């Protein structure tokens, strides 16, 4: 890399995640194929401060550049980049929210300290059937990004060229580890709380990442910190393989049983999902801080958990 390119390409690191996209019937055959691996890559930023902060986190990016040219699974299979999505997280999006989005979608291989200052990423999709438009829409609906576009040339100049992307060794090893882990559909319906700041719409996630819990919550003390700061606003949904797929509903009620918000009402395909609550009721008004009851129903299944809004 030349000195001049450092000025134009403030690359600070790479994240590797697995991101499931919209539900498809073919997902039942997913175990035989690599999962939908996506590379989150910091792009250059227009903000000098955040750019410098990001750049400082990349001590060895030059040596890693060559590795990016070709992705290989642990089994040695070469993967081709099929499409990409550019996104920029909002300034208000916290590191924890980025953490939770990333953890919700797969393996991560970067520290939250880096991510807290980096806003721009490129997702590179390696599974041809993954729809970059659907992924971009999903990210847009999460409310955490300023934009998410599937076409890098669509007026959102990231200044990204093919030789400006990097992957570090740590990210690559995590990528390889994830590539051999297939997401198995749950055996039964289920719902539970997730410690996360994710407050977006229902989103398919990698079950392995969920079982590992959300990154950033590394201890009992940090779990308490997160709950004190953010409450409990995220639920995981487990949808088994049923035919026909039942309509899944998640409705929030006040403690006295008054309906407040319908979070989910759709026929979800088998898999793991995350859904968050932004603290608004069905009419878009912020609810009072407190405890609310989430009721998930699907066919004859019904389960209840609590959410806490600050």
């Amino acid at each position, binding site marked *: 890399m030349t000195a001049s390119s450092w000025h134009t390409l403030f690359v600070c690191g790479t994240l590797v995640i697995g991101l499931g996209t919209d539900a498809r019937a073919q997902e039942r055959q997913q175990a035989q194929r690599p999962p939908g691996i996506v590379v989150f890559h910091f792009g250059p930023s227009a903000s000098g401060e955040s750019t410098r902060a990001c750049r400082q986190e990349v001590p060895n990016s030059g040596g890693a550049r060559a590795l990016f040219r070709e992705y290989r699974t642990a089994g040695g299979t070469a993967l081709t980049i099929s499409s990409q999505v550019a996104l920029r997280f909002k300034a208000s999006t916290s590191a924890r929210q980025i953490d939770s989005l990333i953890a919700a979608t797969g393996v991560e291989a970067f520290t939250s300290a880096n991510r807290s200052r980096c806003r721009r990423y490129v997702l590179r999709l390696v599974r041809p059937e993954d729809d970059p438009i659907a992924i971009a829409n999903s990210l847009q609906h999460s409310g955490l990004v300023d934009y998410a576009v599937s076409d890098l040339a669509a007026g959102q100049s990231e200044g990204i060229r093919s030789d400006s992307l990097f992957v570090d060794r740590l990210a690559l090893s995590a990528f390889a580890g994830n590539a051999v882990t297939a997401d198995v559909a749950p055996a039964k319906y289920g719902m*539970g709380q997730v410690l996360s700041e994710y407050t977006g719409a229902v989103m398919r996630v990698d079950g392995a990442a969920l079982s590992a819990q959300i990154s950033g919550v590394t201890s*009992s003390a940090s*779990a308490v910190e997160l709950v004190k700061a953010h409450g409990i606003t995220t639920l995981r949904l487990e949808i088994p393989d049923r035919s026909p797929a039942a309509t899944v509903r998640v409705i929030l009620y006040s403690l006295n049983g008054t309906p407040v918000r319908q979070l989910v009402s759709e026929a979800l395909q088998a898999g793991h999902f995350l859904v968050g609550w932004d603290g608004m009721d069905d009419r878009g008004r*912020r609810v009072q*801080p407190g405890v609310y009851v989430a009721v998930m129903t699907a066919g004859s299944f019904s389960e209840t958990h609590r959410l806490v809004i600050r």
Partner: protein
Amino acid sequence: MATGAASAWRALWTVPAAAPSLRGVIIGFEQNEFGSVTTMLGAARFRLGVLWQLQFAQAQVSGVIDPDLLAQYPELATLRVMARFVSVDGLHTVGRTTVSAGLRQEYDDLLGVHASGVAARSSVRLRVGHRTAIAGAFDRAMSSSLGTPAAGRVQIAVSQDVVTRAGRLQLDAGARLGRLRQSEISETEYAVGATLSIQDIMSINATAGSDRLSQRPGTWRAALGVSIALGSVGAHFRYGFKPDGRGASRAMAFTYTRRDPATGLPR
């Protein structure tokens, strides 16, 4: 609505002026199954110049954090959800009108985040006819660190009771229409109820009603209560439920109600 000591004591929690002459003590316990809310409450009314009312209530929500999260992060078990309410009100009756004024202090612990606030409140009850009353309660936050303090809350209710006696049996039937306004939220409530009493020994009270929050569809609810009285001492049991299965509650209370020496009726 639907007269009786238990109903009168219940009404005091929203409108202190609702029972102008009721005196005594209540200690109660209520459990809401849907929300896992356990509430303990107590109140005392006594005359010291004017009529005074002291109230205390504490509610706790259990099972807020999933067991699997608690297993993974044991320190989460130290967090709790609790709310406490203490109030003092003075009441005075002139003719058909009863007014009250008082202060309410609230304390809230929402998973480790503490908040408190003080509100001034007043209420007025005007007896229009023999069995018709109009009541209103007005709250105003004075200081609060609660999440979204209500700058003002207004509740107005109209109630009508009918009493029929046949020997030792007495049937009280009543209807109530209430309207609550708090910030952007409004709640309209309709309720009807009846109490069948066997001359102050036992009474069975049944109520049904609907409440509608803002522009949402109405939600029906119903309650069945049984009271047993031995002189001035009463035990009260109440089961409330909603047809859709959400909001069922069980309540139990013990009261000491001071009676008029001349009539033997609660006063």
